């Protein structure tokens, strides 16, 4: 069975895990950048565009060197980015439509070329079909080296141009007005993206690389509003899903790495969407419930307060339920609200089905009104 010891005993697995972890964390960071720039479709485009690149590289060189395949993937990725660059300033609706179309074209081209490439005698040996969904068994030391070198190269522009990347993502107009050239920064981002996709196509595969870049930042975003923590969490989630996914795929015969990793990343994202504080769906649901309840409380108290002005001679003058209900019809049960007001000491039940505001309640309302006047 799987245990912490045979991770280190098993050389192949160690390499596969290290590669997936490294890849996951850089994808987390690049993905965060793409998310902040709202360029999910560009991410998908570049990963699909790798497909024809790999096929062409194989057809032309007839090699099984992964490095050559990756160079092919990078070149077509670059071609795709250059092709869509005039669209960057276009309106979002247009952009999405055209991007989706170009993406499909690249994908179809990739499938056509792959079919052709697989008819070649050395296709099975070169293992090009693993580029669709990724494969852990091809994780050799040389592949880990490729990932490590790309990660190193990606971290340089990320560190150097972080400030510019951030301001362009947040406020491109202001960035341009402060003399930061949009074209240069887009080029830096494109280079980072293409590099990251090339690093990932072996382990995760062309089909799911886009998801690898989308899921970790999406999950991380649910937990924090701080960009530094966001980057850290995104890298962490990417790394965790990388490790878990490749371990899973190693132990289940015939399971490609890509889907395994993405399932793990998807699980993290799903949990984050539901259970994260502040942004998570559960939290939002309970907060809106409690807000509704407190809004109801104040509304009914206000009704009682207004009614009490009719009878200034008495401290407690009961008003029937039907009157209160008709002045302020609530969706929630008015009885429960009234009893909650009673337990808080802001209202009191004076008779059967009759309620009145207490002096504390009046004081509360008057303070509340003072707040409004201010």
């Amino acid at each position, binding site marked *: 069975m799987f245990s912490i010891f045979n991770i280190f005993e098993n050389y192949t697995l160690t390499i596969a895990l290290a590669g997936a972890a490294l890849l996951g964390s850089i994808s987390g960071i690049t993905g965060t950048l793409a998310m*902040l720039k*709202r360029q999910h479709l560009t991410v998908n485009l570049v990963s699909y565009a790798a497909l024809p690149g790999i096929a062409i590289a194989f057809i032309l060189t007839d090699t099984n060197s992964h490095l050559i395949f990756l160079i092919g993937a990078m070149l077509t990725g670059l071609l795709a980015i250059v092709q869509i660059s005039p669209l960057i300033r276009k309106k979002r609706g247009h952009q999405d439509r055209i991007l989706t179309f170009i993406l499909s074209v690249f994908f179809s081209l990739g499938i056509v070329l792959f079919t052709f490439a697989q008819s070649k005698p050395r296709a099975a040996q070169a293992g090009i079909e693993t580029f669709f969904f990724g494969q852990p068994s091809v994780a050799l030391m040389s592949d880990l080296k490729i990932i490590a070198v790309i990660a190193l190269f990606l971290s340089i522009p990320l560190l*150097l*141009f972080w*400030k*510019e990347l*951030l*301001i362009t*993502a*947040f*406020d491109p*107009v*202001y*960035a*341009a*007005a*402060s*003399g*930061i050239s949009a074209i240069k920064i887009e080029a830096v981002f494109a280079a980072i993206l293409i590099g990251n996709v090339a690093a990932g196509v072996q382990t995760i595969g062309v089909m799911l690389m886009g998801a690898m870049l989308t899921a970790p930042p999406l999950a991380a*975003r649910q937990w*924090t*509003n*701080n*960009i530094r923590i*966001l980057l850290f969490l995104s890298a962490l989630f990417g790394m965790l899903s990388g490790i878990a996914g490749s371990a899973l795929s190693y132990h289940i015969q015939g399971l490609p790495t890509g889907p395994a990793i993405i399932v793990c990343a998807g699980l993290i994202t799903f949990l984050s969407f539901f259970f994260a504080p502040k942004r998570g769906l559960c939290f939002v649901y309970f907060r809106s419930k409690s807000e509704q309840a407190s809004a109801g409380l104040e509304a009914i108290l206000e009704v009682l307060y207004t009614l009490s002005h009719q009878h200034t001679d008495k401290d407690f003058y009961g008003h029937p339920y039907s009157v209160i209900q008709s002045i302020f019809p609530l969706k929630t049960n008015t009885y429960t609200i009234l009893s909650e007001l009673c337990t808080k000491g802001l209202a009191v039940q004076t008779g059967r089905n009759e309620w009145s505001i207490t002096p504390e309640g009046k004081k509360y309302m008057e303070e509340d009104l003072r707040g409004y006047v201010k």
Partner: protein
Amino acid sequence: MNIKLFTGKKQRHANKRAVTMLEYLRRLDVAIHTEDLTVAYNNEPALWDIDMEIPKGVLMAIIGPNGAGKTTLLEAILGLVKPNAGHIHIFGKPSKKQRKFIAYLPQRTNVDWDFPISVLDMVLMGTYSSLGWIMRPNSASRRKALNALKMVDMDEFKDMQIGELSASQQQKIFLARALVQDADVFLMDEPFQGVDQATEKTIINTLRTLRDNGKTVAVVHYDLQTVTEYFDWALLLNVRRIAAGPVKEVLTEENLHLAYGGKSSFLSMEHTITSGRVKNQATAEKKDV
């Protein structure tokens, strides 16, 4: 100019030089001037043949109906859109290398307020232009940012995420970001849009402080009621330049008719100016869009 010192050809040269000298001296008092500035989007002119000057040290309103090219004018000065014709000079020199003297405050609605950065981080972006590429903001820029936040009464919110602020507070930190830039000219696009009364006062007081410190401030403004109260200089625009100068000279009924006239809004606009009470039509129109 007719100062007779020489005769014949020499005199004509002297005259010519005197004129250019005068022109030069006059330009010294001008922060920004444009000549024949024309900008078009898809063959539809947004600005047509604009000759205008923003004198140094004024608080100027840029007013005009919707689609008059107010924002386009700012964008052209900043080099964000390319003019089809004409020249822009900043402090007497072609605008290309002079843009570092300008701070810009875009419309608040331009950015994604859900962006995961703190108020201080956003204000620090104002220092990026002076830092240049690669350099990171240091403690000096941090101090500057905090000072700017203090100026607009927002220093206690420095660690909050920008999306948690109200519209008025967001506008104030936008202003703080422009203040950090330490510029000589401030170009602002509707800084009063969607803010409450108190914030409007804070903003206009900050702008006045800037002007009193010798800075030049040009503001795209839509509320005709407050133009005379807030500004001392105005440019009235409707694709073409209608009028420019001291506010009282610009805001005449005739000029306003030229700018806004023909539209159904004119009657109520006139009403606005005479009574000063009815809600400005331009604002109402804006909401419709």
